[in-house]
């Protein structure tokens, strides 16, 4: 826990007239778990997209580990140690779960070995170990397009973890996961990340999850950070409760996916 691992300064990005980022300043400290909450369309995913190189901010800069990464390609940013998972799981649908994870493992080593199998013992063991920790061993041989939403979500996160990042950005890791399993899954995930000393930023709609696992919470509102601090403090702020949590609870009947 020393200093900012990621530092965003004055990020701005507009789509047409919509300001998805309207002056974002944020430091993510090494080792912390930072939750991002806020209503739909507040620009939470946009922040992740800018940090991972998928979108380029109109203005402002992002520094990682003291180095400017604004405008770099997703590929280059991954190589520096920033991985992400997706709101809509991005799996290789015609591959098995095990192959999906193994591909992520392989990409860490460079994939340019044309004659040795992907599922060579070392990659397979690592993939199996990860699947085991995520509780996905039973479906290792299932094709990704045959999974239910919760399993897809987990496999998607497992792929990001397989890249062994220092910073992991997760876009709604628990959406689509059945309520009864949610806490167990998040606990597992947190343990995996703590073991690996990964710094994590995650967009989350479940305030119980935020309260229990986040070190700090950032409240997004119309492309800006409206509040930032420890969960107990931020979540009890009446303004935040009214503006964000109220909307959240109201606008989120169980089982509905966030856009």
């Amino acid at each position: 826990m020393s200093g900012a691992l990621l530092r965003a300064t004055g990020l701005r990005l507009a789509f047409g007239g919509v300001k998805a980022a309207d002056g974002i300043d944020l430091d993510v400290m090494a080792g912390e778990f930072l939750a991002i909450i806020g209503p739909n369309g507040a620009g939470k995913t946009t922040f992740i997209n800018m940090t991972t190189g998928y979108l380029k901010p109109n203005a402002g800069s992002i520094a990682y580990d003291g180095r400017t990464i604004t405008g770099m390609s997703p590929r280059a940013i991954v190589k520096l140690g920033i991985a992400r998972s997706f709101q809509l799981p991005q799996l290789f649908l015609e591959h098995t779960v095990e192959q999906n994870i193994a591909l992520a493992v392989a990409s860490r080593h460079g994939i340019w070995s044309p004659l040795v199998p992907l599922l060579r013992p070392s990659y397979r063991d690592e993939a199996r170990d990860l699947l085991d920790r995520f509780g996905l061993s039973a479906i290792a041989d299932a094709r990704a397009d045959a999974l239910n939403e919760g399993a897809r979500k987990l496999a998607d996160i497992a792929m990001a973890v397989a890249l062994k990042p220092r910073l992991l950005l997760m876009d709604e890791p628990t959406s689509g996961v059945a309520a009864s399993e949610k806490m167990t899954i998040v606990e597992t995930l947190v343990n995996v990340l703590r073991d690996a000393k990964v710094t994590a930023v995650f967009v989350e709609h479940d305030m119980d999850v935020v309260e229990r696992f986040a070190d700090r919470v950032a409240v997004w509102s119309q492309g800006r950070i409206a509040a930032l601090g420890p969960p107990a403090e931020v979540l009890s702020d009446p303004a935040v409760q009214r503006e964000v949590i109220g909307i959240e609870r109201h606008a989120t009947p169980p089982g509905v996916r966030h856009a």
Partner: protein
Amino acid sequence: MAEWFQDNGLLLGLALLDGLSSAGLIFLVAVGLNLVFGVLRIVNVAHGSLYAIGAYSAASIGIFLASRGLPGWASIPALVLSAALVGAVLGPLIERFLLRRIYAQEEVVQLLVTFALFMILEDVQKLVWGVQPIHHDQAMKLLGTIDIPFGADFIPFTNYQLFVLPGFAVVTLVGLAWFLRRTLTGRVIVAVTTDREAATAMGIDAQRIFLLTFTFGAMLAALGGALSSPTAALVPGVGAQTIVLSFAVVATAGLGQIEGAALTSLMMGLGRSIAVYFEPELEVVVPYIIMVLVLLVRPQGLFGVIETRRV
């Protein structure tokens, strides 16, 4: 430069006129292909066969009617009616019995189904019309030629190629633009082209639109063929040549774009005929060079829209 014009001006004039008339034909065929692709998301390899069958049918019908004493003025309407007939018969048949089975399939399967259809129709042409050249130019003779003043000289050019071919193209372009923007069916077609899922989710009867669009596209291909038939003798293989050129137009124009198809057809028609007069070896290559250059600068085609994927 001035000297070059002194020597080659006449040739250049002729090339431009030729280019204009062939651009008209290219547009008619390519815009049909582009429309069908936009709506059905299938590249119809057999589109060129519809062009060829349109041409052969028009020639046959023209020869038959002429032998029955059809007055000359009716030869141009006869061309159009032949094309409408070919499109109206083959279009629904192909859409209903072949394409409808494969809308959910992979792209390669769709391509190959129309490729198989192309192979079949190629031989159908040979069986029906034989391999000897067929030519019927009543419509072109009817309208005679015009001497176009060009500097001190005159270029003789057929009225048919100067007015009828580009004329049909312009009427089609304007009519199509009006239809797509101003009529309900047209707007539905545009909606399906831009966002198919949203359009069908809104309750649009996709099957009807697909049938309609394909039949209309088939008519346009056949019309291109029918109108071309008076200008040159028909031989086997004309469909195969036409379709590759139309592919190039569609990719260059941007998928589903009709104005793009018009501009591209003009570029390719002119480019090709200039090549014919000055560098004949390059004639066939020119359209592809244009295509490659355009796609280098604009990977989505001249008028194409970049689709961004949400993650």
